[in-house]
């Protein structure tokens, strides 16, 4: 049963898809309830897995390998399992998806399809985080692309077609690069083992790259090229400057629920892939390019923040803030310290909750005021005090206010970058100091936005707007509470992550 838990979790949403497909599309309330129940069951399953996850134990848990199919001598395996890196992301996925389903009850257009795609997306995302076979990983990664494309393209805003295609072209490009790289890795490992062994297993791949039977094959150039290709593939997803331009468009046009999932989970697949494959299989190359990654991280932080500062649309401000916050992830992993690596994973989780909350709040406000233009908003604390209160709380979480989760990840990432070894990042202190300017900029754009939207005199036209509905409290309280829990008592998360972090960092000799 323990081995099958993950499989049940990953494919359970597909059962929901089948059930929903059988319901006539007129029964929107049944469909909505069913979608909520299915994702809720997935959430409970993931929490059971979380509860059963053994703390302080190195290596994989709930792992299982089954032969799947073969083409000639080429064996494809269904290999899954989780460790301290994927465990929190799994729970993040089920929580954010469940809450985004609650957040999308106001959608009335093509309801049935909407939830079908959302649940397919859920399977894809969960699959990405459990897959230990590269081919399987790729399949799940692709499986997330299509539903998100439709969610933006059908339920999006005015420019939905442009945004969805931009999303598809960009991330499709990333997938293509990833795919080619996987093939290259496959052949190189095959060659490196003197053509005695074929594997798509990430675990085995890492062993082969660390200790090939024929080291001549895996030269520094080859490994470096593979690492950079992987980096680009995942950098598009995270996103990393200059591959970020799809994100603001996608977010601005996406419906609220899709934005929540996009920022909350999909971006995290980029960070996850980078750590799992880039750092997991090629730790020496990751160390080699650490300075580059750290510099890109700083660029993300500052560039994203500067752009957020000048946005006129509240939602694109939040989108650029995502870019800025993902810079922290790069900074953390580049440091090759336990604190930095843990800070990066904390940031993946924390930003997942916070950005989902921010996008939810922007969506809820837009639904009422019909505008996202910052200068047209104002005085919301008066007209919709509850929504404005949660908006302010979300902004404070994003600012990195202590007591909320964002602070912990920033603190750890900064301890990491300032503690980075000279041999890995020569100018770590300079990089850290520049990154710190981002903290001020973040406070600047968020507080300025709050001043102009929630504060100030109430606009005449916003008098009498309805405040939060009971159903809206579910995502608002849920996401904020999670940010507070992690912020007040991060041990709850570090407990699960720490052993894996030590394993990853120790691969580069300490």
């Amino acid at each position, binding site marked *: 049963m323990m081995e099958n838990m993950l499989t049940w979790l990953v494919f359970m949403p597909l059962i929901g898809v089948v059930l929903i497909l059988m319901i006539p599309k007129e029964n929107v309330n049944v469909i909505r309830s069913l979608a909520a129940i299915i994702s809720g069951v997935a959430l409970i399953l993931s929490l059971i897995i979380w509860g059963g996850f053994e703390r302080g134990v190195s290596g994989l848990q709930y792992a299982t390998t089954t032969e799947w199919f073969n083409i*000639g001598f080429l064996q494809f395996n269904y290999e899954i399992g989780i460790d301290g890196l994927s465990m929190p992301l799994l729970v993040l996925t089920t929580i954010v998806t469940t809450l985004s389903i609650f957040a999308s009850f106001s959608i009335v257009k093509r309801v049935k399809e909407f939830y079908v795609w959302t649940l397919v997306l859920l399977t894809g995302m969960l699959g990405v985080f459990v897959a230990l076979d590269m081919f399987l990983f790729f399949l799940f990664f692709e499986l997330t692309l299509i539903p998100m494309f439709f969610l933006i393209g059908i339920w999006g805003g005015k420019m939905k077609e442009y945004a969805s295609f931009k999303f598809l072209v960009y991330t499709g490009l990333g*997938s293509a690069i990833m795919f080619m790289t996987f093939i290259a890795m496959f052949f190189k490992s095959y060659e490196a083992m003197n053509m005695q062994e074929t594997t798509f297993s990430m675990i085995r791949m890492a062993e082969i790259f660390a200790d090939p039977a024929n080291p001549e094959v895996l030269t520094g150039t080859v490994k470096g090229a593979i690492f950079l290709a992987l980096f680009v593939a995942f950098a598009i997803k995270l996103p990393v400057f200059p591959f970020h331009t799809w994100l603001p468009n996608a977010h601005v046009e996406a419906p609220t629920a899709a934005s929540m999932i996009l920022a909350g989970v999909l971006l995290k697949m980029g960070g996850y892939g980078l750590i799992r494959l880039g750092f997991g299989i090629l730790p020496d190359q990751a160390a080699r390019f650490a300075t580059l990654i750290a510099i890109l991280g700083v660029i993300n932080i500052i560039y994203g923040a500067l*752009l957020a500062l000048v946005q006129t649309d509240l939602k694109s401000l939040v989108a650029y803030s995502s870019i800025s916050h993902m810079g922290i992830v790069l900074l953390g992993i580049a440091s090759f310290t336990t604190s930095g690596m843990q800070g990066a994973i904390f940031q993946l989780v924390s930003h997942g909750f916070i950005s989902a909350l921010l996008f939810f709040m922007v969506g809820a406000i837009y639904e009422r005021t019909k505008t996202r233009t910052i200068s047209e908003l104002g005085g919301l604390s008066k007209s919709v005090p509850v929504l404005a209160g949660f908006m302010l709380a979300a902004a404070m979480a994003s600012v990195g206010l202590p007591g909320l989760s964002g602070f912990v990840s920033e603190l750890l990432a900064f301890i990491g970058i300032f503690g980075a070894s000279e041999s890995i990042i020569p100018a770590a202190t300079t990089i850290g100091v520049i990154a710190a300017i981002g903290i001020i900029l973040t406070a600047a754009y968020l507080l300025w936005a709050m001043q102009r939207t929630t504060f100030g005199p109430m606009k005449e036209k916003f008098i009498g707007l309805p405040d939060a509905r009971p159903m809206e409290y579910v995502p608002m309280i849920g996401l904020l509470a999670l940010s507070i829990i992690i912020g007040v008592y991060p041990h709850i998360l570090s407990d699960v992550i720490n052993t894996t972090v030590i394993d990853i960092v120790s691969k580069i000799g300490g």
Partner: protein
Amino acid sequence: MIQNAWLIPVFPLIAFLILLFFGRFLKEKAAYVGIAGLGLSFIVSVMVLFERIGGETYTYVIEWITFGESTITMGYEVTPLNAMMLIVVTLVSLVVHIFSREYMHDDKRIHVFYSYLGLFSFSMLGLVLAPNVLQLFIFWELVGLCSFLLVGFWYFKPEAAAAAKKAFLTTRIGDVGLLLGLVILFNQTGSFDYGEIFAAVENGLINDTLLTAIALLIFMGAVGKSAQFPLHVWLPDAMEGPTPVSALIHAATMVAAGVYLVGVMYPLFLASPTAMTVVAYTGAITAFFAATMALVMTDIKRVLAYSTISQLGFMILALGTAGYVAGLFHLMTHAFFKALLFLGAGSVIYAVHHRQDIRDMGGLWGKMKITAVTFLIGSLAIAGVFPLAGFWSKEEILASALLNGDGFLFAIALVTAFMTAFYMFRLFFKTFTGEYRGGDHDDPHANDPGVEAQGAASVAEADNPRDDSVDQDRVPPAEDHGHHDAPKENSGFMTFPLIVLASLAVVAGFVNAPFLGHQLEGFLIQGLNVGAQPHGELWLAFLSLAVAGGGIALAWAMYYKGAIAEDFFASKAPGVHKLLINKYYLDEVYVAVFVRPTVAIGRFFWEMDKSIVDGIVNLIGRSTRGTGRSFSRGHNGQLQTYGLVSILGGLVVIALAFVIRGYFG
């Protein structure tokens, strides 16, 4: 009881939570929830203090986070310094809670106000009880949040919204320095615990350059929080908040946190002479410049705000010249008399129908006796008149500056002390003596350019924006507490706190009076290695008294007796007067040097982002535009095809590769 010290912040937290969830049902009764919470905290604090006087430092921690081999803990600790701070914070907070019951009673969001006060008290007490510097930082940021919320309490006033943001952002600049300092310190010592940090410092584990860098970075935090030059600009604007908030947060407690920070990290600062010099000069410069601006302000709260900055500068100066006890002693006495002055100002503002310009006041001595007498006591205390609290602590600061500083620092301190006495009695005479100039006319100085220049908020604008048409939270004037009545003394809710604080302003100095054997000093320095504390000789006390007397006499001559014209100095040096009234144009300089260029860079990058970075992608995008049209027709089969193709295509590539390279067979 010392083991139960954790209860002290928890009571206000409970009050906050009750008010957060049930406040709207309680309305005015919310005040009693807050008062009860703080009352309990104060009682426990007193018990803890007495236990600590006869006992040992108590520490309790739990694991907070683990990474690699490092563990960070959180908990609480009772040391002599924080036992003293607990009393100061709970006491001032309690009287402010009581005062606000009357002051805020016609505000429909009074329960929100009390919930914020509760959250603030919790955070401030958590800051004080922190057993390590990271926990201090966490609560440090939380008090900043509360300050933001309370400055912006009347968020519908654009000035309040702007001031709240400015306060948060300006202090945030200092906080980033502080955070970096802590991060570097952690990487050097492997711990945030005070004990381990100081052990590492004493054992010379940190090299001198780094030590100085760390100390200065940490000091940046203090500069922001305690409104020291050049980050002081937020504090005067923060007066947009309700006056009780100004008394509690922006005078007595939160702004003193920077001084407290330097105090708790004192061994680190002592180890770096460079850092100590920077600290001393920052304090002296701040004390001086803020005092010069206090000379010309006409808004009663802004005079007090600049006075607060100046007095905080005094404390920082003391710490920078090895006067550990002097700085912290002044922190305590100042908390009492400045809270007194602010609440007194609040009482006056309330009585004169929410006017704040001292040119509209006058003649209140006979009309509000308790407020007037207590305000006089506060003014005498801050001026440093024997035997009030300020006399003892200021004398010690002068001693530190003289004995451990240099002539320049001592001279600046003396001049500032003179200005302090002058501007305080200018304020006192203008407010309480002469004829009442309030009358019935509204906003007499609304169009006065000098007033306009004083800040984002026009000074003539009332503390409570009763005229704001959008503001429906306030009762109409007809039901008000006599909007156009002549000023009269307020109820016991407001006068009782004044009496309590005035009593403390009289007696608080004796805890460290030389003739009683410097009791506070003995208590504070036990177990600490902070060096010998400087003490002045008797002549210094007389000099200090003479300077205070001189300042008071000049103010008396100008504003009471009229022997010297009120605009004597302003007319003699109009340029200087203009410079002062415009606060040395620092706000304008900051906007021009920092804000505008940053926004310009942002705009430039955004244009670049849209044209260059994105242009390349759009080129690719255009080629797929045809496919996009399929959506509108509802044919999305092509997309499924795309998905299939991208997967199948991959498989074909693999297969091809195998065939070509002959791996099959």
